[in-house]
């Protein structure tokens, strides 16, 4: 690991200001020489591996702003501070009752120890777990732009089938993000240029030609809040995660569903897929297929077909298309059958 300087500012403004003062402030955040660190579960791991090589760490774990650590439920929805720990959010009664998909996605995301450390803001921004990205001896466009992609023709069982480009097929491995997509959440950010709000579904960028540019954020921009609008029907929401083992593993496929049922018919539905795509993935085609009709195994199957119409498999991950479809069917049926 490279040597690094360490700053622990007390205010958000100061934290962002430190990074803004750097010469490379315009670099895409993952390549910036200054990095924010909160829980550290992703950053420390990637620094040890040499994937992240900042020479300055800005520890935001103790920023004084209480809003960053608050979970605020109101009739308008629920607002989660970016420094709320994953385990705190999943145990919150408002979330468990009103937004089960959040609690379920967080609970299955990692071990309790990691969930006790990791912040929600950091969790959203976690970088891929692609084996070829994690080991710096392989070529990787996401880690080292222009170096190539060893995964493309390598062992790519865990790689994405949706949202891929010819530069990158790395999967987005988070879980919480799918819940946020399905709930139509937005995020608020802060930088020296002020605050802004964006739809969560706009936050992540497809790899395209620049897989190292992962989000819309700037290097000196911090997520401060996650805003989830009120949706009474979010009580009927569910996160299904299919893994190679029962726990403490990344999704081979996962599905977040928020379902509005009326007399057995789908009034509205939002679906997001994980473990299958390069970014948190909204399955809008599947939603459209279901809206207005009954929800049964047959209609769910049609929606699942639609969701994967554009899937692009590689040598070892073609099964993810059929698994993804089946997972979507299962998640829809399980959500339908929830007692709310």
């Amino acid at each position, binding site marked *: *690991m*490279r*040597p690094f300087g360490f700053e622990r500012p007390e205010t958000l403004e100061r934290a962002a200001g430190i990074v803004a003062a750097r010469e490379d402030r315009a670099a895409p955040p993952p390549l910036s020489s200054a990095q924010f660190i909160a829980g550290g579960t992703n950053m420390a791991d990637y620094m*040890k591996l*040499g994937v992240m090589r900042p020479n300055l760490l800005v520890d935001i774990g103790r920023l004084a702003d209480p809003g960053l650590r608050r979970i605020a439920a109101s009739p308008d929805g629920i607002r989660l501070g970016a420094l709320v720990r994953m385990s705190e959010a999943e145990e919150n009664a408002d979330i468990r009752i009103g937004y089960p998909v959040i609690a379920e996605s967080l609970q299955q995301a990692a071990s309790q120890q990691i969930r006790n450390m990791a912040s929600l803001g950091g969790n959203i921004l976690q970088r891929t*777990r692609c*084996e*070829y990205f*994690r*080991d710096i*001896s*392989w070529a990787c466009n996401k880690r080292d732009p222009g170096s190539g992609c*060893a995964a493309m*023709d*390598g*062992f790519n*069982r*865990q790689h994405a089938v949706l949202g891929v480009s010819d530069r990158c097929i790395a999967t987005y491995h988070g879980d919480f993000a799918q819940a946020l997509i399905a709930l139509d959440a937005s995020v608020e950010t802060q930088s020296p240029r002020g605050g802004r709000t964006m739809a969560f579904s706009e936050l992540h960028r497809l790899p395209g030609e620049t897989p190292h540019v992962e989000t819309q954020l700037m290097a000196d921009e911090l997520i401060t809040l996650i805003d989830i609008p009120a949706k009474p029907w979010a009580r009927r929401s569910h996160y299904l995660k*299919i*893994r*190679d*083992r*029962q*726990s*403490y*593993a*990344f999704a*081979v*496929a996962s599905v977040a569903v928020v379902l509005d049922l009326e007399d057995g018919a789908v009034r509205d539905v939002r679906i997001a897929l994980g473990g299958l795509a390069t970014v948190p993935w909204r399955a809008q085609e599947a939603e459209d297929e279901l809206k207005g009709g009954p929800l049964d195994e047959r209609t769910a199957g049609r929606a699942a077909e639609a969701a994967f119409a554009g899937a692009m498999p590689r040598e070892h991950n073609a*099964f993810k298309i*059929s*698994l993804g479809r*089946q*997972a979507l*069917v*299962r998640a829809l049926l399980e959500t339908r059958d929830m007692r709310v």
Partner: protein
Amino acid sequence: MNEAAPLPKGNMGEPVARIDARLKVTGDARYPADLPVRDVAHAVLVTSPIARGRLTQLHTEAARAVPGVLDIIAAGDVDGELERPQFGNSGSTSIAPLHDRRIWHDGQIVALVVAETFEAASEAAALVRADFQAEEPSSGFGSPGIEIIPAAGASPLYPENPEAGDFDAAWATAEISIDETYSTPTQHHNPMELFSTTASWFDGDVTVNESSQNVTGWKNTLARQLKVDPEHVRVVSPYVGGAFGSRGPMTPRTAIIAHAARRLGRPVRCVVTRKQAYTTQTYRAETRHHIRMGAMKDGRIVAFRHEGWELTSRPDNYVVGGTGTTARMYGYGAVETKVSLVKADRNTPSYMRSPPETPYVYALENAMDEMAVALAMDPVEFRRVNDTMTEPIEGKPFSSRSLMECYDQAAEAFGWNRRTRGIGSMRDGDWLVGMGCATAVYPTNVAPCTARVRLTADGRIRVQSGSHEIGTGIRTVAAQMAAERLGAPFWSVEVEMGDSSLPPAPVSGGSTSTASVCSAVMKACDAIRARLFHAAVTANDGPLSGLAPADLGIADGRIVAGARVEAVANAMERMGVGEIEEYAEFAPEGSSADAIANLYKGKLEMRMGEEGAKVKYAFGAEFVEVRIHRLTRETRVSRLVGAFAAGRIMNPRTARSQLMGGMIWGVGCALHEATEMDRHSARYVNTDLQDYLVPVNADIQDVKVILVEEKDTDVNPAGVKGLGELGNVGTPAAVASAVYHATGKRIRDLPIRIEDLL
């Protein structure tokens, strides 16, 4: 008291808690990298990112400029100082990473960086740049450029392919036949403790702290490599954080670190990253199998042919060779076997828990299940029909064989009679339920061993033997043996192990330790008893005077003959001694005259289960219930039941734990474990615990272990059959059988994953 401590049945010892339990729950048990060493420098390995070629140049300027860097050792720097490593006996490979510039495999060591701190060494290691002349590598099965050679004769451990009768003729008579191929993947041991070496020199003597399953073998191997007399080398391994074969043979790193410490004049510690362990340590070779089995309609097998192919490195002929066991499993009639080695640009594989049986018995038992289906027979009954007390290769009797007793007890506990036969006929909501079973087997091997036992007048006992506490409970059972033979309470015994300065014991592998160590401890204790008894009966006025020594026993600190007793302390006082110490050498029946001398030299003569007038095997039967989601097809193991017969059980608690752990290993083998290969580059891909999956707590639900009573006086003086490697042998095939029952899909290639069942 609880399920972890089963009540002993006949021929079983007490389920006492581990002698080192308190140390292990308080953090006071010191594993080698925990041992404090003054002024230790930290070393980090630099490894090759190519699998085949030549190192042309190493650029170390940037690394040397890192503050705190003390030394960088690279190819050429060991010439004249270190002998090349050798493959076989105690050495894992002949690949000599710093002796020459040839790259044999991915992740081969190319340099070692030593610095004041771990952080500086890591930083500098990342700055070492190497140039290579790369060649196209062969990654393994199916790759261009591999070399295939017969295994028979390629290794002294595999002289010939076992066979019996005329297979072709018998095969032609079969009414029902199975002709299938099976495969098992590369697997890595992944013990929880990272691999590490710490070497310190003092006045020409070197002490190496490293987790080892063979301190005596390593001492000798290391001495040869360092060009010093073995008496100047000490290997210390007080506790081992899991081994499973990975710490059996010594790998090239050990001598390199010892050399670095000698060159620097300062102790050096190297804790290898988990990623680097995949290529600098050993692994379980990938295997392929072709089985032909012919049977008559009544279920009798008449012809069995098992051909295996095993992956190994270019320079070293490591042979798995499991046909020795599969050829003897059932009363087959005619048997033909053949094993070939497939040589590729890979590091050299080695032993991993039940090395031959895990892959080979998986193939056999899967074929047995297929045959039972083809015969429309219950798989338990099919095994009963082919059970035999005489092995088919040489016609020798088994010393004991409780296979069907195991099946019957396990089937009963499992509720096998509740299984409905139809495919997919058992369901629990959206989950398909499947039930399956398979045989577990492991040869009873035993090896020469020495031990020293001291009894002091205050009743305390010290046992010394250079064996290894790798989690098996060997310290505990050695203490139990000493306590029993000397009539003393368990708590009065202390046991020293894991140090090459102790009387030598064999490698803790091949499930030999309990049998070998307990036989040696027993012999030493019996020598102490003989001295005590002699003193008691030859005393002029003692309570036991005049009796025959053979009539005496010892219990509760007293020498006993019926109602007549004398305290051990009295007898010792009479002898005029404060302590009695005996050193014993145990050599198994049939050993060579040099067996003990060779043990001291680190050359092991293990007596295998097939050797001698009788075949000595331990058996078990395993039953598995799986649940597979009808849509998403993930497989979960909801129940495991295993019944095992392994001769005398020294401690039902540690035996149960080890068998249970083995069965769970089998679950990992069946459903999770595989080291994946990037075929183009011949490099491993999933080299950490994030991507190489082993079972976690939530994967394991209901596990039941039944210890079946068995007495076998032929195996060794202790009457003990090893069981450390028995538990995991049957599970994978039992899982495959259950998956078939649930889904109708016969998965012949491990691991069984979601994609196989969609």
